[in-house]
């Protein structure tokens, strides 16, 4: 299930894990909102990279690897970070709350929803860390 980040296989692995992880299913049971990630080139990443996840009631309904920036205009949350910062989060070197509070991870979307659901967000990160076998 775990895979090399970044890759389409990794995103599929994340989808699979989100749909099978009991803890995530419980903690995210009320979550309704899709995410659009924009990874800025840095280090080993030479071109911008995007991925999309549609998260709904503790499940992942859809993923899309490297869609066009305009592909999902009404996404609930748009998140952006440099490659080194996103990989630091995935390897546990950077606390996800630290990333958000220090603007290493920029967030656009309903802050009311985000602040009410911080435990869900943190558990999503846990799942993403668990499917990350290696970083390019």
């Amino acid at each position, binding site marked *: 299930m775990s895979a090399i980040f970044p890759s389409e296989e990794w995103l599929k692995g994340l989808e699979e894990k989100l749909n099978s992880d009991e803890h995530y299913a419980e903690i995210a049971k009320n979550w309704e909102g899709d995410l659009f990630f924009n990874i800025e080139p840095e280090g080993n990443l030479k071109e911008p990279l995007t991925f999309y996840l549609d998260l709904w009631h503790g499940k992942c309904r859809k993923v899309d690897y490297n869609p066009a920036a305009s592909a999902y205009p009404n996404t609930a949350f748009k998140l952006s970070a440099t490659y080194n910062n996103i990989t630091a989060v995935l390897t546990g070197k950077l606390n*996800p*709350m630290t990333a958000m*509070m220090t603007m290493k991870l920029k967030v656009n979307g309903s802050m009311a929803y985000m602040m009410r659901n911080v435990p869900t967000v943190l558990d999503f990160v846990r799942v993403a860390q668990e499917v990350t076998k290696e970083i390019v």
Partner: protein
Amino acid sequence: MLPILKINLADNTSEEFIIPKEWERDFLGGASLAARILYPHLTEKLDPLSPESPLLFLNGPLAGTNGPTTGRFVICGKGPATNLWAESNIGGFWGPELRKAGYDGLWITGKASSPVYVWIEDGRFEVRSAAHVWGKDVYEAQEIVKAEVGVKSARVVVIGQAGEHGVLYSAICCDHGRMAGRTGMGAVMGSKNLKAVAVHGVQKIEVTEEYAKLRSEANRTLKQDNEAKVMHELGSAGVANYAEYLGAMPAKYYHQGGFAGVDNISGAKMAESILVGKSACQGCVIACGRVVDIGDGKKRKGPEYETVVGFGANLLIDNLVEVVRLGELCDKYGLDSISTSNTIGLAFHLFEMGEITLQDTGGLNLEWGSFTAARQLIHMIARREGIGDIMARGSRQFGAAFGAEDEAVQVNGLEVAYHDPRGVSGMALSYATSPRGACHNQSDYFFVDFGHTYDEIGIDYYERQAHAEKAANVAKHQDWRTHFNSVLICIFANVSPQTQVDLLNAHLGLKWTIADLMKSGERAWNLKRAINNRMGLNAYNDKLPKALLEPLKEGGAEGYSPDIEGMLFAYYQARDWDLETGKPTREKLLELGLGEMAKDLWGENNLKPVKG
């Protein structure tokens, strides 16, 4: 900095106090500079409510320059409930208006023979009778004074009935509910028979081209900041859900881990139900202030985090509209909502324990969740009626009056704010060592325990329930926030150290580095400590109340209590403070250029040359 207008209300004489340049260099402005100015005047024998007691309103160096959240001012003196150094900073528009009138500070001494207000306009002042304003709430009083001075754009600081009646945790208000709540400066103002100070000025506040450019960039960056977005959209109560999840939000007077009703009172709930607008202080791009409509079509101030928790989870009230009403009642009376709700929480707690009875309360049933009882107690405190007269002296004295001082959740006479050190352990040191009692604004370390680090100044992340290993980190964070309290930048503004250095250098013509900035913070922290040492504070005072050392049985902080002894030992070492006396060592004071304080605390012997 511009001169300070010094007025003696006993005879209405005045003088201009010119701030020595070397003090500005060492302390910048705000609370740090105020500490330097007031150092000779704050003695152990000084009664904070006596005519001799000083009350100093002071700006920061960037007041009115539209820098990122730099429009605040601070009010300092000796705290009537703590008998220690007191400072309370406040937003609104009054500070910048004072600068436009030609002053950066107002220093009040003496006591008027009857209620007065002061009117300052463009370098002139007048003391007027306030007999007809005495007894009015903070909003009515502002309107009456503004109408009388005949200048609509005048700005007014004012006390309510609580300050008039000497409630020891009275606040000073300006504009629509901006409060200098902590440390009872409203009581000091009331003790001088001073109801209000109205200010108007037309002088232009000049800035350099370089500063203007940096200011624009800093404000643009701040507007995009994640934390600023939370504050803008949800107000400070936006963190309520997360704080509750971590066990960092106290409930049932710090005796219950978690509060199931948090969703009903959080900033998110407010934003989705009763919020109809936002308000901002001078030059602020965040606008954390809430404007709400609770169903009567009237726009009113909505509560911030401390009020939401103080009158919500703390009393087990999960009705947001009632929390709004209780917060508004405190504001109108000019009461600090933290100390008021904390002291009411103690009353509920003692009632449950059977330490106080219906006979003591005048028949008032202090049941958890009762907002009617809370409302009645606020009236009684502000008017000093019945049990409210004892509660008006603060939780320490209130507890002591019923043989239960240990039950009061306070440090050195200041009630603990609503960030539980069992959920975010850095707050244990923040509360125990703060120069003004259990304060969260001298170091809001809970944000660091949430994850907010500062790479540029080496403030790192430690586990939120770590112990002594984070002591040096807390000290560094206190120095950082002391810098904020000098410049009077709002602690909600995530403005980087380098940006702050650049802004100061551009406006003041300095050549500071980040190291200079941090050293200035450390210097002022130690100066305030020296002031308190001279007024009798020692190592014994650095402690936590009993409740915060008892592990909770449930919630995000279940089973944990901070090792305060171990943390303090490591903290003293990090600070270079003497373990026996609690004083900064002579060497530390000399290193910081505080030779006068070294001499006062340690005597003349072996004095080394003073730096600079």
